[in-house]
């Protein structure tokens, strides 16, 4: 004890004259820090209602609810998060996980209201005092709870792939598949978009669990062409995948393939265990493409006697004759078709209805008929000189190659068109050693072909010329060659708000000589075999317009596939077949359609 100990405490007076620290609330407001985790704001326009916020919320403070005036559409569930401030702890995990990055917190932290129900509100939709607040917690650009980049699949290099018809995409290794499957947030927005409504999150979960057999069962619930669709599906699901909002969408298609590739064909019967009893009714199917065979599969599973009439020597339709084997090897297509046939589906190859067997016989001997003949007649260019012998259709080239014949295109080829058939015809021509130029009316981004096909075509050396309109085809000096006259086009925006239209610039014309011109601007259908029935079936733009369950005006005739839908892809055909099978079953059973 010292004198110092007595005097020293009086030092306290030194601070008595300092300005006080206290803030005079509520006269003075103290704003939260710029990063403060205050009240929720949701940018409703950007939110797609994936529900990841609801899934991660540890307090169950978030419910995804229907919002008035907001309709569900592809890529948007139409639901928005509703917060319960009786449960929220403002941890902001919902902000961190938000796939659209639409959810954020304001730095508004004090709120008094006499209405107890007001603490339960839809952020961004209900009027809250902080909705215009521009500060508050956001996810840092370098902080992620999700993996935004896709696991790339190994592929043949363009040089290797040009050497032959080996499959370009090698498929995921198990490790790659697991990593890619791990990215999924299981929102299910893809399910609504998929024409066949495949249970995507469930089968991706099966991949994560390495449950290949369970995955296969899930695939076959909605799609008996899973090996095939795992390779060439137009994967609209991926367009709407919420992971694509900030990065690349989940490779849903490749994960489907990952499952199918891991189950050998010999084990399909044991795993899928498709058992049924014959019900004695008979259904005829015209066309053994994905639509016809899918209908056959689901009808057979319900005990119908199914006969499929196929004009070609093998099944698969456009999948076999329109898709080159470097995208879909034949043995993989056979894997799907052979399993369906193994259930006792009778497929009569080389049997063209209307030629080898009369349509009336189908009508007389079967309880119902499903027609899925596809579009196999190339559309005309409708320009002068189109009948020139050096002008061939894209389908013809693909057909030749599929049948192992030399398409004989020569050294310089021009392909007209921008769809998948055009890209495939171009790539096939590259593989037989030709220099290929692709002429397309609109811009590259307008091309209906899959982006991968466009990318790979370029990588393989196809020369893509957009905004090029063919005008005339004429003889060249050499009888084995042909001259095309084409003009450059300017894109003119459409007054009605439609997509921009190409307009020919007459002063910028080109004349070029090629060995072959490949016309691939689309295909039409040929329905003459149906005879007088045709009059009772509604048609528009060369396609059928079926009613509910794909049923037509002739009650026992159902139609599907490319001839009856606008999308004309394999997955839509599969769904049409499945849907028609349901319709036929209702039609032929007690509960049925009329």
């Amino acid at each position, binding site marked *: *004890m010292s004198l*110092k*100990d*007595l005097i*020293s*405490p*009086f*030092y*306290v007076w*030194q*601070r008595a004259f300092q300005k006080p*620290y206290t803030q005079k609330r509520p006269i003075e407001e103290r704003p*939260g*820090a*710029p*990063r*403060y*985790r205050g009240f929720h704001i949701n940018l409703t326009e950007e939110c797609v209602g994936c529900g*990841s916020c609801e*899934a*991660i919320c*540890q307090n169950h403070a978030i419910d995804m609810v229907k919002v008035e005036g907001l309709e569900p559409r592809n890529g948007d569930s139409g639901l928005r998060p509703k917060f319960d401030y009786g449960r929220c*702890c*403002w*941890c*902001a*995990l919902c902000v*961190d*996980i938000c796939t659209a990055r639409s959810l954020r*917190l304001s730095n508004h932290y004090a709120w008094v209201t006499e209405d107890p129900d007001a603490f339960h509100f839809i952020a961004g939709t209900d009027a809250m005092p902080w909705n215009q607040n521009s500060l508050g*917690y956001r996810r*840092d650009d*370098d*902080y*992620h*709870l*999700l*993996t935004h980049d896709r696991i790339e699949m190994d592929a043949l290099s363009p040089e290797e792939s040009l050497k032959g018809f080996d499959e370009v995409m090698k498929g995921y290794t198990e490790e790659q598949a697991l990593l890619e499957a*791990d*990215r*999924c*947030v*299981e929102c299910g927005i893809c399910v609504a978009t998929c024409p066949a409504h495949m249970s995507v999150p469930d089968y991706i*979960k099966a991949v*994560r669990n390495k449950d290949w057999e369970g995955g296969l069962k899930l695939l076959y619930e909605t799609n008996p062409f899973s090996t095939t669709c795992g390779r060439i599906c137009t994967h609209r699901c991926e367009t709407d995948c919420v992971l694509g909002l900030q990065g690349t969408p989940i490779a849903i298609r490749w994960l489907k393939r990952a499952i199918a590739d891991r189950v050998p064909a010999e084990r399909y019967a044991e795993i899928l265990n498709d058992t049924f009893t014959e019900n004695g009714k008979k259904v005829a199917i015209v066309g053994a493409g994905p639509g016809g065979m899918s209908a056959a599969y689901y009808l057979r599973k319900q005990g119908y006697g199914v006969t499929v009439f196929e004009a070609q020597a093998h099944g698969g339709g456009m999948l076999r004759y329109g898709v080159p084997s470097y995208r879909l090897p034949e043995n993989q297509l056979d894997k799907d078709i052979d399993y369906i046939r193994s259930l006792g589906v009778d497929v009569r190859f080389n049997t063209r209805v209307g030629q080898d067997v009369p349509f009336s016989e189908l009508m007389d001997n079967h309880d119902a008929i499903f027609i899925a003949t596809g579009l196999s007649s190339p559309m005309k260019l409708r320009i002068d000189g189109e009948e020139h012998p050096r002008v061939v259709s894209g389908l013809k080239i693909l057909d030749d190659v599929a049948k192992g014949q030399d398409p004989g295109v020569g050294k310089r080829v021009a392909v007209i068109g921008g769809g998948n058939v055009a890209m495939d015809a171009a790539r096939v021509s590259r593989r037989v050693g030709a220099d290929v130029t692709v002429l397309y009316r609109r811009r590259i981004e307008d091309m209906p072909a899959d982006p991968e096909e466009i990318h790979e075509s370029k990588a393989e050396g196809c020369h893509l010329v957009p905004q090029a309109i063919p005008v005339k085809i004429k003889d060249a000096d050499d009888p084995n060659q042909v001259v095309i006259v084409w003009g450059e086009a300017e894109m003119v925006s459409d007054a009605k708000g439609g997509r921009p239209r190409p307009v020919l610039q007459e002063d910028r014309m080109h004349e070029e000589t090629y060995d072959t011109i490949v016309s691939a601007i689309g295909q039409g259908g040929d329905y003459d075999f149906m005879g007088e029935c045709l009059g009772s079936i509604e048609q528009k733009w060369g396609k059928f317009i079926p009613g509910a369950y794909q049923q037509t005006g002739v009650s026992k005739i159902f139609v599907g596939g490319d001839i009856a839908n606008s999308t004309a892809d394999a997955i839509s055909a599969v769904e049409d077949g499945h849907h028609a099978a349901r319709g036929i079953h209702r039609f032929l059973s007690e509960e049925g359609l009329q």
Partner: protein
Amino acid sequence: MFEPAAPVDLSSGKYLKLWQGPQHPGITGNMSLELTTCGDEVVACKTHVGYLHRGFEKLMERRTFIQNFTIVCRIAVPEPTFNEYLYAAVVEELSGIKAPERAEWIRTFNLELMRLGSYLMWLGGVGAAFGQSTIYQWTVTHRDYILDLFEEMTGARVYHMYIVPGGVRGRLPEGFEDRARKVLDGVERLLMDVEKILFNNVVFKTRTKGLGVITKDMVDPYGITGPNQRAAGFARDVRRDSPYLMYDEVEWDVITGTASDTYERAWVRLQEMHQGIRIMRQVLDRMPTGGPFQTPLPNVLHWEVPKGETYIKAECTRGEYGYYLVTDGSQYVRRVHVRGPSYTHAIALMEKMAVGTNIADIAGLMVSLHTYPPEIER
């Protein structure tokens, strides 16, 4: 319960039962001491806990690995970041994730800032317990400046939820380092003032010197760690003995005392606050300003941590803080055990030390052990 030498006969009229708590008795949180007194001397003490039980360890078994990091901060309210760090560390170890170096620096700063904030509140508490409530107002003000820094850095003042498995949740805000330096300078000046008016105060010295002596032979049997053991002369500190984060990259001293009484414990803590400021200044100088601060995690919505078990400890303000985690390969924790220093300090030790003290000193004695009941009842 520590039994007094002679049996207590309450009907004799010689003894009185006195409850301290469970109403919040100061900064020590909601627990109660059942005191048996004779005159103003305490002859027996029994502790009662359970008033804050929220079952964190059980709650965590029902939450996914990412969800848990938002609740661990609540286990020790005045210093949540030690829980955040340790939870992140055990999960990282079992899932084979290593946080980037920048995150380790930020974590080190975060933990030391928390230590300083927690000590400031404690310093105010010890002042208030011995009648010097001015100290409390000063130190809590400066703690608020520290909370301002936390608010800027993490988005919240108390439940920061900033240290996440894999790293931290965001970079430091623009100009943060300068503002942090200013706050540290302010705290340093404050500590010098506090030293003058509290540590050189005849009242404080008289009341605390010799109060609540922890003898050397009590340290290990009672599981005493942290400043409480360092004041008894043990130079043990997890940061030095098994370094984690960036503690072996910076220079600092382990402070020890000898007298091991309430005054000595306060003095050791005061010196540790200076050491903390020293560490933080080095961290601010050396912390990288670029590069990643988070290692990518698996998709947190279905994150499965491989089967395993681990125990990781860190030196919190009050001693050894540890997380024991058992995982079974699923998306959920199989078992988590939180080892906080309060359990040993506030129960067995308190029951022993209370005996023989004056009723008026009980609150000060309890504060001098620096315990938090929520951590006992995790």
